[in-house]
């Protein structure tokens, strides 16, 4: 199927305004990071009991989003579904940008950012997931670059090979990211299911984002987008959300059912502000409502509703990343099982975490940088297709 | 309005960012030339008390490689547990003032080593 890709004209006032807005937000984030570098991490909401916060949540979130974008391109590259070929370049480009965003988020979270560029590469620790994962992330970006090369030069065989490699690599990357938590000794982290559920949630969020983004992009640039393509992605999204729900159910029922973990489970489900985020943000808005929208006949065949479902899943998975990271830290580790521990200072007992303005600024700054790169990429590279139609005639692929 | 021809537009596209990138170097050059005669540019390293006869290494080596020596010693002391006579802690036995010795050269080249944030040196 011949797809004609083209650059967007990108000379409207709105385009330049959007570009400038993203650049400004990105710059604000960079300045914020410099300030944090000088002051120390005490200006964030993190402290000795909750050493990981919003930046890590956003890092794993962006890494997850990069998988999902790759799923869309994988539909064409791996599974040969020609009707999704028009989206392939945009999807891979966005996937690469989100991985860069993830790396940037991790980078800005380190206590000694200057050392991060040297030490993890010179003194590698095979037993540490934090050492293996950045290698996976960087090689993932390199694979995306080769993938883009294959797509741009329309090399079919190379595309097939790299797309499959990228797909497999995405599984590795996201399982590794999930394993940072899943293979950890905190009660609410420790779960062999976490790598798998991380992969699926990543795909759900990426698909949701692509649905919303593609519809918006095609509409804004007045390109034709066959509704059926969006509905197809919507069905895929529904499948992913169902699997996410399944994993969540199994993980939490396991914790609740076992006497040993029941206290931890009840804390997770009902014990704090994170529980609101879990039930309302993740289960309600992130899974239940989108599933309804994607299955109910009237809304599942309506573009605005499918886009809404996509956006809700994007929000829901952000909530999921939050409840992966934070409750495990706010709940105190069981140093003395069966005992109540209290002490001076804030080290013992249940902790609380609230991100500060600085952290929001940094998180938005990362978003600004990749938003800028994406918008600029639309104008510099031929990413968007002239139109996205399902081929009328069935036949051998051209 | 005349259309700027394609070739001069590409030149502008390259020239403007190049000029912006060269600005810091230009500033450094001007600052160096302007400050070449001032006191800050002529470091005066206070000599230690003559009773200390043994220098760690010859002056030329220390001037250019003292940081390499310190780094090697650091690796040995911290990670291999070998005690050492020539670490940062022992420097101040002979060179008693950071201001009159270390900072003289470091300030002249605007160098801010990380060490003194953690290691006390009067």
């Amino acid at each position, binding site marked *: 199927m011949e797809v004609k890709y083209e650059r967007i004209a990108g000379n409207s006032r709105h385009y330049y305004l959007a570009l400038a807005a993203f650049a400004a937000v990105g710059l604000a984030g960079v300045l914020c990071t410099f300030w944090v570098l000088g002051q120390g991490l*005490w200006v964030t909401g993190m402290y000795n009991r909750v050493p990981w916060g919003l930046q890590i949540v956003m890092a794993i979130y962006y890494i997850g989003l990069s998988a999902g974008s790759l799923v869309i391109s994988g539909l064409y590259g791996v599974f040969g579904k020609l009707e999704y070929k028009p989206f392939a370049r945009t999807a891979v480009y966005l996937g690469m940008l989100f991985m860069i965003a993830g790396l940037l988020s991790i980078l800005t979270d380190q206590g000694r950012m200057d050392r991060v560029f040297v030490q993890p590469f010179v003194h590698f620790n095979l037993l*540490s997931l934090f050492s293996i994962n950045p290698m996976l992330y960087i090689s993932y970006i390199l694979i995306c670059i080769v993938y883009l090369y294959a797509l741009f030069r329309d090399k079919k065989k190379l595309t097939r090979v790299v797309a499959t490699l990228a797909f497999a690599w995405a599984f590795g990357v996201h399982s590794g990211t999930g394993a940072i938590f899943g293979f950890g000794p905190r009660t609410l982290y420790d779960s062999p299911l976490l790598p798998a559920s991380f992969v699926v949630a990543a795909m759900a969020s990426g698909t949701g984002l692509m649905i919303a983004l593609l519809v918006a992009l095609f509409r804004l640039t007045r390109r034709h987008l066959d509704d059926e393509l969006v509905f197809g992605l919507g069905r895929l999204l529904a499948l992913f959300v169902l699997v996410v729900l399944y994993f969540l159910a199994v993980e939490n029922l396991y914790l609740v059912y076992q006497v040993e973990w029941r206290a931890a489970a009840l804390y997770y489900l009902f014990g704090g502000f994170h529980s609101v985020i879990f039930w309302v943000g993740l289960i309600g808005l992130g899974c239940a409502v989108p599933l309804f929208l994607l299955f109910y006949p009237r809304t599942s065949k309506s573009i605005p509703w499918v886009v809404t479902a996509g956006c809700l899943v994007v929000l829901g998975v952000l909530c999921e990343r939050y409840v992966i990271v934070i409750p495990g830290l706010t709940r105190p580790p069981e140093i003395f099982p069966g005992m109540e521990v209290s002490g001076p*200072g804030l080290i013992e007992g249940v902790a609380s975490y609230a991100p500060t303005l600085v952290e929001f600024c940094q998180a938005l700054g990362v978003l600004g940088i990749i938003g800028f790169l994406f918008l600029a990429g639309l104008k510099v590279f031929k990413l968007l297709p002239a139109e996205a139609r399902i081929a009328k005639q069935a036949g051998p692929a051209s | 309005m005349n259309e700027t021809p394609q070739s001069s537009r590409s030149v502008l596209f390259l020239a403007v960012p190049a000029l912006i990138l060269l600005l810091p170097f230009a500033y450094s050059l001007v600052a160096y030339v302007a400050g070449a005669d001032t006191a800050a540019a002529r470091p005066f390293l206070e000599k230690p008390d003559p009773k200390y006869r043994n220098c760690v290494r010859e002056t030329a080596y220390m001037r250019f490689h003292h940081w390499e020596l310190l780094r090697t010693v650091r690796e040995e002391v911290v990670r291999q*547990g070998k005690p050492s006579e020539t670490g940062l802690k022992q420097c101040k036995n002979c060179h008693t003032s950071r201001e009159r010795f270390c900072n003289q050269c470091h300030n002249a080249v605007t160098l801010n080593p990380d060490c003194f944030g953690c290691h006390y040196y009067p």
Partner: protein
Amino acid sequence: MDRREFLTAGGGLLLAGAAGTYAVRLLTQAGAVEAVTAGRHRWGMVVDLRKCRPDCTACLEACRLENNTASVGDARWDVHWIRKVHVKPKNGGAERSVVLLCNHCDHPPCAQVCPVQATYKRADGIVIVDHHRCIGCRYCMIACPYNARYFNFKESEEWPNKEFPKRSHGVAESCTLCAHLLDVGKKPACVQACERAQAGALVVGDLNDPQSEISRLVSENSVKRLREDLGTEPKVYYIGL
């Protein structure tokens, strides 16, 4: 093949060779996480809770003054390498105070997860951080099951012990068992303070030496370690827990 294919192939081979060499170098380095302790000291600690007075804070103060731990006046960012907690059984029982510190495990989870091997176990069993290498990722703090690790969120302006470095912001740390004192044959600050306070509840010694006081205490008393079920093999033994 033509010139372009030759150059591409050559470049690819070069890249593959470089990547391969790097990979081999990385993988052969990985064994440096835990070191063998045969034939050397093996430092451990015994905390005798029967002798520890609940209201005494001598060890806490001494540790801070010896090691320059960050004391910024805010409980969120104050670093306490050694701390005292109150422990009360959930189903009724008396409340007791327990001294907690880094357990210097034989299988330290913190050293396992450090991405740059900044946290490592010395040959004599002390788990220590190389502050020149730490990137401040705080994964070790997540991994420690005893909550014994801290991060320098905010730098302290005080420098009580100028003979010992203080940490600037951005690196993780935990109790070093006063390795700098043990290395020159002295006792850790907390042990000295406890002796001065006429309690003698803290004893640090060489577990490899059957004649040392700590070996005697461990073999003669009913000792317990924290979370022995985790398999971390901590080397801080509690009497009367």
